[in-house]
């Protein structure tokens, strides 16, 4: 088996697409997405980016819903390890490549780290215009009026946008971008991030990127607050954290408990506590 499963042509193609995407922050680049032994919709985009980039010196972390032990993360991590024999870790600080589904780690990322997002739907305009040809024109025209009117209508009816995750952002003052289904809580971490952020949609065959230190802001009215998920009055039952995204879990007695969604963050809090 070839190193990292993909043939050299495929890797070259993906790398070129990545370079183009990084050169134009937030712009969607088409690429020849290969079929993998993992199903479409299950992370083939993120996987192809990781496989095209990874080498023996890397340390890989894979999370799904913030957790390294989540079934999908385990599966993907095992697959990548089996075709590269790379070092893997659950420690966010140690990883050079972090492949993630639906969350950004709580611990701030540093320069030289790469965050690879698994993306189901690459174009934020899909919510208001499903036709791909029309989407391209709208992006070219910087015409995001449909997104703005949607925001207006939601605000007049419900006081705020109805969008819960995949909240639209403006990248580098130019392109409206789909940040993948991350919570609004994480949307704020996209801007001015020290790490490289790459987005891969395998099924839709698209790649886009946010280079480090890029301006990224959520699409919102100037005179309205960007409200994020609220965990007021709650804390992690395991490490006591009051400043992380919490999971609501029901135990066998029907009682509700809250735990840090980012399991590595929780672990490291405990370690700090121990010290």
């Amino acid at each position, binding site marked *: 088996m070839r190193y990292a499963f993909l043939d050299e042509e495929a890797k070259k193609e993906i790398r070129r697409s990545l370079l183009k995407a990084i050169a134009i922050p937030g712009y969607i680049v088409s690429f020849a997405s290969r079929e*993998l032994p993992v199903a479409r919709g299950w992370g083939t985009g993120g996987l192809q980016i990781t496989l095209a980039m990874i080498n023996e010196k890397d340390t890989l972390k894979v999370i799904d819903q*913030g957790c390294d*032990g989540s079934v999908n993360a385990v599966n993907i991590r095992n697959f990548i390890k089996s075709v590269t024999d790379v070092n893997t870790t659950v420690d966010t600080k140690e990883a050079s490549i972090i492949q993630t589904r639906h969350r950004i780690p709580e611990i701030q990322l540093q320069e030289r780290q790469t965050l690879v997002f698994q993306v189901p739907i690459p174009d934020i305009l899909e919510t208001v215009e499903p036709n791909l040809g029309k989407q391209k024109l709208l992006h070219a025209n910087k015409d995001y009026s449909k997104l703005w009117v949607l925001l207006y209508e939601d605000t007049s009816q419900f*006081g*705020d946008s109805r969008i819960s995750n995949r909240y639209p952002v403006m990248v580098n003052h130019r392109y409206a971008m789909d940040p993948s289904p991350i919570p609004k809580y994480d949307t704020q971490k996209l801007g001015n991030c020290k790490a490289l952020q790459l987005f891969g949609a395998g099924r839709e065959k698209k790649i886009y990127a946010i280079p480090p230190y890029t301006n990224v802001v959520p699409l919102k009215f100037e005179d309205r607050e960007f409200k994020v*998920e609220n965990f007021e009055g709650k804390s992690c039952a395991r490490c006591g954290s009051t400043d992380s995204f919490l999971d609501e879990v029901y135990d066998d007695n029907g009682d509700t408990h809250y735990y840090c969604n980012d399991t590595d963050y929780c672990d490291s809090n405990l370690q700090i506590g121990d010290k």
Partner: protein
Amino acid sequence: MAYYAIKGGEEAIKNSLDFYGDITSKGENLDDEALIEALTFSIDKVISEGSLYSKKLAARAIKRSAGDMLNASFFLRAHRSSCQRIGISRTIDVNDMRLTRRISSAFKDIEGGQLLGPSNDYEIKLLMDLKDEDVNIEEYSNEDNVIKSALTPLRDDNLIKTLKKEESPWDITRNYPSAPYPRSAVLQVMSRGESGSLLTVGYTTMRGYGDVHPTIGDLRIGELDINFTHPFTKNEVKIGSIEATAVESVGTFNQDSEGDTKLTTGFGFCFGKNETKAISMSIIDLTLYNNTYSVGGDHIIAADFEMIMHHLDGIESFGMTNHFKLPHYVTFQTDYQIFRSAQKYSEEQKEEQRKEQK
């Protein structure tokens, strides 16, 4: 008390695969060759949707999937991805097919006759056995039957609309096009598309969502040789042969790009024996390139290139549909919070209105 609601994933996966292995192992002892012969239509569906002509691999994939054909096709696609591309064979002409079956609904009789071949068209679908009928075979020949398409006379008379020829065919597995989509890419998507998806879309045209009025001009099943130029000797050699189905449908007529009135046709083609799929494909091809304004209602799916190019691939739709089983508790948490906020806002608005009314 388990904090690790989803941790312990490794073990859970292992156990799950083990359980699944119990199911798929039941077919382990089925002989590949026997499967290829006995379940020939299943095998053909898998090589077509898997986009890889290997009946042996298809047999293995079907056993590994315990009969889930789409899953089996997925195995073949993944395998195809790992195969090295050596080169491109000579373009096949379906007129060279060694026929086992060839019919034309358009004509009562045609050169070479209506060769029914093995077909279940006239099968009465009763699961119980009927009396054994005596079979009388008059003539029997082992010679190759190669007959040109029944539409050839019409083509020779220049009555059939031809579309603009592309310089070189697109390859959707190397590069996925954006609109306007080259016809070679459109045909590739359909040829390896999921049979049921093509059936549904084709069916919509038959119920009024499209003005095509198809008649099957030529439906053929048989063997085609694959010829390849040897990379070193530069000689052309036959490297094998494939079984395939090809259908040419004739539609209505319209004006071509030169302003001449011509008959419209559509082409369907797939690996193995799959008449339903090839017929559907030819009708969708007809509809895509001959959409008219006056009939068919507002939105004709079969004439919409975006619908065809992005919704017919079984591996993609199957993956996306099933991905909803993956954990989505973070996104659900966000949905729930937004819902609660909106609820609160609505109630506050109502309260204010009530106060104003007093």
